[in-house]
């Protein structure tokens, strides 16, 4: 009993020391997150004849929409970053005319920015940034007799390239063709 009591006292002392140590810093103990406060509940209009309609007729919607990252203004050496960022932001905010072409979803515009920052180098020539007829975001170059498109959709990014002089074409998944795309972007940077 004596030994157990001593052990309890030691643990309590250590715990108290921890609290005192924390109190001396600017750390804040985070309480449990109330997940329900980050969502609001509404009727799920998309459920109609589903067998779960009666039990799953309500759905939780996030109250906070994901934010588009701020432009890293330290990259002043980049040829393309300011223009591409602005265009993606315009597409994301619907500041364009979408009469004949669908407006890309925020998920797609956010992925497009991620792809741009991953694939384009500071000296890459500025591409046009347009919506596709499927609601994807497309980076387009017509330069040095090459047509190059990097198309970013909700699930994957693809590439299509065409040489106007030779008729050479390559296409497919951006991940698979990344080496060729990088070489072509290097070539375009010097022409």
């Amino acid at each position, binding site marked *: 009993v004596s030994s157990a009591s001593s052990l309890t006292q030691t643990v309590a002392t250590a715990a108290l020391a921890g609290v005192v140590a924390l109190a001396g810093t600017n750390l804040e103990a985070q309480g449990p997150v109330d997940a329900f406060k980050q969502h609001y509940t509404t009727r799920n209009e998309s459920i109609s004849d589903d067998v779960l309609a009666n039990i799953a007729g309500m759905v939780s919607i996030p109250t906070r929409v994901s934010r588009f990252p701020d432009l890293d203004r330290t990259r002043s050496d980049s040829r393309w970053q300011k*223009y591409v960022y602005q265009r993606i932001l315009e597409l994301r905010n619907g500041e364009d005319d979408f009469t004949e072409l669908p407006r890309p979803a925020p998920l797609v515009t956010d992925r497009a920015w991620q792809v741009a920052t991953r694939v384009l180098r500071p000296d890459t020539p500025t591409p*046009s940034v347009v919506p596709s007829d499927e609601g994807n975001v497309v980076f387009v170059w017509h330069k040095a007799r090459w047509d190059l498109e990097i198309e970013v959709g909700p699930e994957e990014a693809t590439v299509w390239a065409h040489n106007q002089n030779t008729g050479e074409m390559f296409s497919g998944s951006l991940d698979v063709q990344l080496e060729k795309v990088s070489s072509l972007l290097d070539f375009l940077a010097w022409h």
Partner: protein
Amino acid sequence: LALIAIPCGKSLPVPNGDKLWRRFIDSKAYWTWDDDLKRWIPNRHYLRFDPELSVFWNRHLTLHGLGPESVLDGDPRFTVVGELDVSDLRKERHVGDLYDLYFPVSHSPNDLSEIGCAHCSVYWPPTAIPEGAEIPTKDNQKRLQTEMARRFSWVHGAPPRDKPNGS
């Protein structure tokens, strides 16, 4: 007199050398910069074939006393009219370094609008369609749409002026 000679609603042959007009929206979504031509060309995604591309025959509109602005159809969102030369689309000829395209063009009048009598259809080149298929491969569709985009000139309004900085 010309309208009597060429009645509306009847499909007629479209001769080489005639022009085709299509309307565009002056918004960045509809244009891509061509750094070789040093001008904006249409976003190929706006040149949709479903299964044909709709354009309007300039000769027929002229017979009605209408100019290129008539294809805007009074919709204020459209402010630019592009022009294609029928010969450039289908005739076996080289235009500078541009490829031959062989797009069939036919007059396809309809009553969907007041200028429907001048409606024409551009179809995928049969030579670009693989055996057993109905349309070209996706890669070839992109090539053909891009080649077509490069052949547009402007007869009403104009695309954006400033090129993308750093292009």
